[in-house]
């Protein structure tokens, strides 16, 4: 199930399409589950007429959560020890996102094995929306 250090090398990648044609309804779903009801994500009238954006846009945390799915599918369940991102561009309804993890380092610390990953998520135009890193405990 889990990754093995002996089967990995620096530069290896794992990529997944984490959302296809993101719907406004999924933004509502994420607002309800997370408790973040910022109208910028669900209220078209407020967002266009008051805030001055072309339309509602995704919670950064939704993009981070979608990207996490790719990482945990790669490293295994309950293996993440660190995960951090910068939100580099907004994600809009209709976007499709591809998330990629690249092995940056393989380490042994206190008898445990870890993989450090660089993480990048891009939209259908190739624009990066998430740039980050993650660390996971893996098998020898």
């Amino acid at each position: 199930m889990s990754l093995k250090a002996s089967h990995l090398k620096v530069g290896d990648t794992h990529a997944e399409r984490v959302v296809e044609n993101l719907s406004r309804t999924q933004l509502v779903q994420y607002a309800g589950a997370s408790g973040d009801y910022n109208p910028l994500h669900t209220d078209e009238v407020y967002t266009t007429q008051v805030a001055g954006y072309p339309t509602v846009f995704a919670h950064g945390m939704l993009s981070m959560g979608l990207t996490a799915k790719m990482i945990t599918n790669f490293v295994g369940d309950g293996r993440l020890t660190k995960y951090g991102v910068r939100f580099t561009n907004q994600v809009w309804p209709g976007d499709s996102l591809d998330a990629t993890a690249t092995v940056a380092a393989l380490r042994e610390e206190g008898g445990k094995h870890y993989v450090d990953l660089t993480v990048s998520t891009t939209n259908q135009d190739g624009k990066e929306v998430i740039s980050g890193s993650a660390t996971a405990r893996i098998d020898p």
Partner: protein
Amino acid sequence: MTKITFPVEASHIMMFARAVGETNPVYLDADKAKRGETDGIIAPPTFPQSVAQFDPEYHLRPKPGQKWFGSAKTPSGVEGKPASSGGLHAEQHFEYHRHLRPGDVLSVEIKPGKTWEKESKRAGKLLFSERITEYRDQHGELVVTARSVAVKTERPVDAG
């Protein structure tokens, strides 16, 4: 500094997992999760942020009897005042000592961190502020630490 009690529940984990498009049984199916490496359901990596549900003062949730800045009869419920969302999310970092499980009752402390400014071509002056959130379990053990950076922009960030 804010202190919040955050009870972690399987139904909340299920709703959160669905919202991020998860189909992994480790978040959704108690029987399958029990047979796997984690010996039961765990929460997805970004789930700790939904502590917002348990913050009585959380400013991005409409509250009974209080004006809400989103639209209703008019485009904003606080017309005439600057409608602020509290800024955009610039960065988020988690450190996991262990993963959260249904039945955990977390004590969560949110503390302000550093603040700084930057100029940007896309959105004018940017004011950054950091927030550190520590999640401790029912035994007092630190289980997750989160650091988030918010940014307030002078004007909307354009779609280009």
